[in-house]
């Protein structure tokens, strides 16, 4: 199996998301449908979705989704997992074979819990053990790739157009309180199943439209903290930055936004509230290596909510629509109108202005 970091070719993409603020679970069909009017933003080399609240019966277990190139790789990976985790369930992820999606790897999911004895011996918390396990499998177990590892959430992605990927993974059979979606138009790498979006680590998932120019500066910094960027795609590094800022540094989504899309110094100089000005100055100085430059629009999903964010120059489009307790986000208004033809409000956030939506009930685990 050739991972895409082994090849580099010198993006337009489509993103969408929908969330119920009250935690109502919504069928995955609508998020798949939202990608149809944005078909031409993708080129068939990647599509994917993340659903939150989809595994309530296993909500206390980490759900690992994996691609394997062969049965023997799977056996080897399972043996490795069982050294440190209790595997309560392992199964093929159900798919619907279609002509549009070909050359699929072997796709499994495992619901796992770290063995308490292992956590005690290693003096790690459960999340950190999961992160290390994901990094280990993805960098050293050739032919295996973990593409989802959070609790009560899951990522589904493939090479193909997003609407075909959604049908392939039978997303009409899942219900979640939050969904994100991506259609890919890769410009730097050739398009491989693992390279489709969303990129995920634990429950943090990122869909991204853009082409960041700070990739290598960001990568060098984040790799000092144990993350390994294996795919040369900018979305992977954004995912690790957000995991680092929000899980390790325990910052809020809004604070993370003020770091990765920090306002210009001239804009900070105009801020009239002294406390806010001081915070912006502090975050921009403290985490200067995590400023992401170049065009991007992203939706970050996490247990209990999501954040949509544009680069500070707003070099990519993003529209937000609201109707009752539902919030819809997409690269184009047309996609929002598919999910909800009759929105109450529709607007475009400014560059660097985070739109954070938190769920207050239902399946959300909070964060």
């Amino acid at each position, binding site marked *: 199996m050739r991972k895409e970091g082994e090849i580099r070719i010198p993006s337009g993409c489509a993103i969408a998301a929908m969330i119920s603020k009250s935690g109502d679970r919504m069928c995955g069909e609508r998020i798949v449908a939202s990608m149809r*009017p*944005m078909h*031409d933003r993708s080129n068939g080399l990647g599509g994917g979705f993340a659903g939150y609240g989809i595994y309530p019966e296993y909500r206390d277990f980490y759900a690992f989704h994996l691609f394997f190139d062969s049965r023997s790789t799977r056996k080897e990976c399972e043996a490795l997992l069982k050294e440190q985790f209790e595997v309560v369930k392992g199964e093929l992820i159900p798919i619907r074979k279609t002509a549009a999606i070909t050359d699929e790897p072997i796709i499994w999911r495992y619901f796992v819990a770290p063995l308490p004895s292992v956590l005690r011996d290693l003096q790690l918390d459960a999340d950190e053990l999961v992160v290390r396990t994901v990094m280990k499998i993805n960098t050293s177990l050739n032919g295996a790739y973990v593409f989802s590892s959070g609790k009560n959430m899951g990522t589904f992605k493939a090479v193909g157009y997003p609407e075909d990927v959604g049908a392939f993974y039978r997303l009409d059979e899942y219900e979640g309180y939050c969904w994100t979606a991506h259609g890919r138009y890769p410009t730097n790498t050739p398009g491989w199943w693992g390279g489709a979006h969303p990129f995920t680590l634990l429950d943090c998932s990122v869909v991204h439209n853009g082409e960041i120019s700070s990739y290598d500066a960001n990568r060098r910094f984040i790799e000092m903290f144990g993350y390994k960027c294996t795919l040369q795609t900018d979305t992977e590094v954004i995912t690790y930055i957000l995991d680092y800022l929000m899980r390790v540094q325990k910052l809020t989504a809004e604070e993370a936004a003020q770091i990765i899309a920090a306002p210009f110094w001239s*804009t900070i100089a*105009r801020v009239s509230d002294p406390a806010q000005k001081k915070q912006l100055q502090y975050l921009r100085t403290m985490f200067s290596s995590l400023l992401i430059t170049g065009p991007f629009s992203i939706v970050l999903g996490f247990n209990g909510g999501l954040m949509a964010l544009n680069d500070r*120059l*707003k070099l990519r*489009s993003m*529209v937000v629509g609201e109707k009752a307790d539902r919030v819809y986000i997409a690269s*184009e*208004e*047309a*996609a929002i*109108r*598919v999910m909800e033809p009759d929105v109450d409000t*529709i607007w*475009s956030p*400014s*560059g660097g202005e985070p739109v954070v939506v938190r769920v207050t009930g239902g399946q959300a685990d909070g964060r």
Partner: protein
Amino acid sequence: MRIDATELDFSALNRAIRTSEPACEITGCLGQRFIAAGMDDIDVTIEGIPGNALGAYLNGGTITVRGNAQDAVGDTMNAGRIVIHGNVGDAAGYAMRGGEIYIRKNAGYRAGIHMKAYRDKVPVMIIGGVAGSFLGEYQAGGLILVLGLERGNRRIVHNFPCTGMHGGKMILRDECQDVIFPSQVDVRKADEQDRAEIRAVLTPYCACFGLDLDDMMDAPFTVVTPSGTNPYQQLYIAN
């Protein structure tokens, strides 16, 4: 003639427009790009959400959208008129070089980026609400007019207007106390001659949207033009 766009992709929709009577009404539009691109002598009305690059390279005729439009409305349009009753996304009038774009509500980022003019080709873009950042970025010609209607406590234009502006004129219906302009432009209050020009361009705009012209004129206007000392003027246009 009506065209139901529900099952049509952008090329089928454009074929239907080309083969219809000059006047047609599109219903069920949802995200189809490039509508009426490069066409002339058309009179298209759109119900629904047209996709990006609506009326790109438009060379004459009229496009009317009853609701919102997406990004890059009138990209590089040469002549004709595009009327949007709602908001537009980013980069409206991108490199526009003739004709008019009338927007009733707000515009996103980079409206009028690299607008230009040549002899009798003088493009006009009028935004009824507020404009996002980088309004008139690299503007080289033509007129951008922002009215700031129904804007509440929002600034008439967001950050960094006129960045790299080296030609044309921008007019904002406001005193602009809270707007920071770059150093290479001159900012002044509209004089009588400016106000006559504003009245002339607003007359068809107000007729389109049923607005009262005298009400629109009853406000301060700020005029922005590149300063004569701007070295790029010599470099890029005086040849």
